[in-house]
Structure formats: structure tokens, C-alpha cells
């Protein structure tokens, strides 16, 4: 649930913690830190996120845009979280295999500054 208090110039976001874990919430709201000051509080079975604009006010138009963006971002970060966690072992395996058993046949990579492309 996402609500907006005009008087307090504050958006409050209540997120069900059985759907969105703390990793998702932190990663999602990290990106809001340029314009907003973010406070994240863990409650019983939900997480409360307080979003305050660092400068200026949050008007109705901005709130409506933000509401849509937050919902979408939460879904995107949940999707990313699933990929990260489901693929953790295979990713580790790829990296471990990549850096084990280095052969001598590597091609020479010539380091260049932008001037000698």
C-alpha cells in the first residue's frame, strides 16, 4: 500500500515482507536516494518505507508517477532477486571454472589508451 500525506510532504509505503524480502527493498529504494530521503523500518509482517523529498514538495502528479514507479520497481527487483538466488550456484561454478586451469594459449591483449585504438 502506498499513501501520501500532503501535510507531511511524505509518501508512506507498506510492503508485505512475506512477498518482498529486505534485500529487494534495500536494492529497490537505493535508487531513490538522489531526490528522496528514505527511511526503512521493519515491522511485524510488513516493512514501512518513508519517502521524503530532499528539496521541494511532492505534489499529486509526482505522487501518482512515483506510486506506479515504486510498484514496478518492486516487481523488477523481486525478479532480479529470484534470478540472483536461483542462479547463485551455477554462477559460482562458471566463475570457478573460468579461473581454474588457465591455459597458456591465451591471446595477447594489447592494452591501449583511447589514442591508439
Amino acid at each position, binding site marked *: 500500500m502506498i499513501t501520501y500525506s500532503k501535510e507531511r510532504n511524505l509518501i508512506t509505503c507498506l510492503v508485505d515482507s512475506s512477498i518482498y524480502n529486505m534485500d529487494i527493498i534495500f536494492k529497490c529504494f*537505493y535508487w531513490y536516494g538522489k531526490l528522496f530521503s528514505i527511511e526503512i523500518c521493519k515491522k511485524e509482517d510488513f516493512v514501512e518505507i518513508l519517502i521524503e523529498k530532499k528539496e521541494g514538495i511532492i505534489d499529486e502528479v509526482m505522487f501518482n508517477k512515483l506510486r506506479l514507479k515504486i510498484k514496478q520497481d518492486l516487481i523488477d527487483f523481486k525478479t532480479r532477486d529470484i534470478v540472483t538466488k536461483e542462479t547463485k550456484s551455477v554462477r559460482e561454478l562458471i566463475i570457478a571454472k573460468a579461473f581454474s586451469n*588457465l591455459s597458456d594459449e591465451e591471446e595477447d591483449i594489447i592494452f*591501449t589508451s583511447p589514442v591508439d585504438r
Partner: protein
Amino acid sequence: MKKGIPNKLKSSNGYYYLLPFRFERINQEKEILINEVGDYLICDIGTASKIVNRQIDVKSNFFGELISNYFISKEPIPALLNLLANRYRTKKSFIDNFTGLHIFVLTLRCNHLCHYCQVSRKNEKNELFDMQYENIDLSINLMFKTPSVAITMEFQGGEPLLVFNKIKYSIERVKKLNKIHNKKINYVICTNLTLVNDEILTYCLDNDILISTSLDGPKNIHDENRLRSNGPSYESVVNALNFAKKRIPLDRISALMTTTRMALNHPKEIIDSYIENGFNHIFLRAISPYGFAAKNKNKNEYETEKFVEFFKIALDYIIKLNNEGVYFVEDYTALILKKILTPFPIGFVDLQSPSGLINGVVVYNYDGYVYASDEARMLAESGDYSFRLGKISDNYNDLFYGEKAKEISENGSLEALPGCSECAFQVYCGADPIRNYVSQGDTVGYRPTSNHCFKNKSIISHIINLINDGRNNENEIFRSWI
């Protein structure tokens, strides 16, 4: 299910497993999926979510595309895992080679007075800012200790041609020692060209030395930025360029531009001036916040949004020129394209993870110290020695693998940085801990307000949108650049 094996979930009519990939929206309708080795698929928004929720029809062509591009697998451990690991190793193979670019700052003196001088040049008469011969010898010894078979020895300044005798001394010594070391060595002199003469050009030609100069665009822009002590420099640079072109092949001469606030309004004029001067490529380079550039804010400070706008207009113009039959390349785009469209890594240190500090580049400075990058020595001129590795006379292992080197390298991997770790563009981007440190106070940085992040994210997604759109022949043009 074995521990550690990912979940197999049933899709509409079959099973599949996820492989590591990241995704990002690139416009209102499309998102890009990018896997661990940089292969990408551009799809409708919501596709990543469908993949994760097993909503992909296993009989569809798209399912086949996802399998063949390593986004999903029918097996928990894909049969071609070794191939994927090999591709990953190739992408990161720049690490094996270790330091390839060795910058020698033989002097900090310069005969120019550029307002954006990022190295904080010194008066051209003050020889206190020249490297001692003893330190040149020791630096060359350190350079030869690098495991890299192919190395670039780049002379920077100040204006290195003020000490051409020391450049010659260095190269002759390297040639002599290389009879034992047998490395592939490229030489580059970064010069404003105003001091070139027959002797210098003949030496460059005989030793296959690449000349890199600075050209900021047409006369009015160049002269606004790059003054000599006796007046404007454009005429002398262009005359020197023409003189040099008669003696050495043009492909051994290149130029770099620096985008000042004034330049932002003249992308087309800048490109035209490069073409007029015979160049077929340009590196559209934003100004960096070091040295005098950081002090002279009125001429040099601008919002990164403005640079990105300038870059896009310039790139559009370059694409138009290519469509009209003029082969002309934007170098930063070409570097990113190599990362997007080929399985190979690039040597450009600003677009690497782990970062190019020490790994890709080091600087042997006139002051007798070794620095982790060009920016590190620029910072030292403002009294901040955070990225100084030690003395040129120190032991190679202590300098390149010691505590200081470890500390500097700690926050140099995008894979482990907040914001970057889940960014789809990670494979195409690069870590810049020194820029983070200078602009945001620590080497970790903070992506939401990072200019480096904003610039790279905007430029990479713009290039991807151009590839996807392709209405102006971008695919063909871009492929001809790499």
C-alpha cells in the same frame, strides 16, 4: 534435489532452469536481458518476469533463443557450462595480462596554459619538475617486470617533447633491454605538437611511435581552451599537424578532445574540424574533475545530462556522415560496441571490472613515485596521495601486490558494488574507484548521484536503442567500427 542445484519449475508445458542474467528497461516498451558473458536479447517489457515465473512456452522460438543464448537451460547445470566458463574467461582475460599500459611522466612542465589542465602543469622553464635519469632507469626495470607480453609505453606530461632527449634515452634503453625480455612494445607520445621538428618526427617514424595530440575543435573553441604563453595555439597545432602528416602516416597520429562548457553547444563543428584535419575518428571525452579543471569551474563544470545530450547529437551527426559515405568513428561508442557485439575484452582501462587501476595501467611520475593511474597522479598534484603506490625505487612486488595495491583494488569490481551488482550494463561498464573517491568521498561511491554511472548508463542504453532501432543503418555502421 541436490543441495545448491537451482529450482526446476514447470513452465506451461515443460521445465527449465534459470542461468545468470540481468535486465534493464531501455525505453517505454523494451527491456534488455544481458547474460554473464555479455550476450543480449531485446524483448518486450515484462519478459524477464515471464522467464522467472516459468511462463515461456517451451515450444516457442523464443524458448530456443533463450536456451541458445544461455539465459535458461533444460539442465540444472547446462551441458555447455565449460563453453560459458571459457567465454567468461575470455571476457576477463585482461586480468591475466596484468599491467599493459605504462605511463611515463618525464616532466610536468608545459608550454601551454590550458584552463582545464587536469595534471596541473608547471612553468616550462622549471626543470625541478623533470624525472631524473636514475628514476627513468628504475621505472623501466619495473615496467619489464610486468607479466604482460604486450605493453604500451606512453609518454605524457606536461609536454613531454620539452624533454625529448629523455624520451629518446628511455626508448633506446627499452630497446636494448628488450633484447632479453622480448616483449611487444608500443610507444605513444602525448604531445600538443607545437615543438615537433624533423629530428623528432624522423625518430617517431623510425621507431613506429604513435603520436597523440589534443585538438578541441575549430579555432574559436580550441583557442578558448588551449592557450600558449605567447597567445592562441590553434594555428601552430594545425601547422605542426600538417608538417607531421607529411612525414609520418596519418594512422600513426591521433587526437583527443576535451568537452568544455563551450564545446557543449558545438558538436557538429567539432566533428567537422576533425574531418578537415584529416582524422577519421574522435573520442568525445567529458572533462574530468582534476587539477585546474576542478578549480576553473565556470568554464569546465556542467551537468552530465548536458554532456550526454551533446554526445547523442554528435553521434547522430556521425551516423549521418557515415550514411553519406564518410567513414568516421566515435571511439567511446566503438569501445562499448566491442563489449556488446564481440566476445573479447577491451584494453581501455575506464571500462573494466576489476578496474584498470594497477591491473591495466600505472604511472611512473616525475616526482619519483608510482601511481595507480593517470588520475591518481593528477590527484597528487592537489596534495592527495591516496593512490600513490610507493617509490619508483621500491620493490616490484611491494608496489604492485602490496598492501596499498590491495587497498586500492578493494572497491574496483562492479560485481560487488552497490547498485552495480544487479545492473544489466555491468558487463559493458567499468569501475572507477578514483572518480568515486574524488566526486563522492569514498571509493565505493553512490550510484544514484554518480556522474560516471549516469553517463555510462545513458550512453550504453542509447547505443543499444540505436542498435535495436537500426532505422539509420546503425547496425551496419556500428559493425564497421569494431
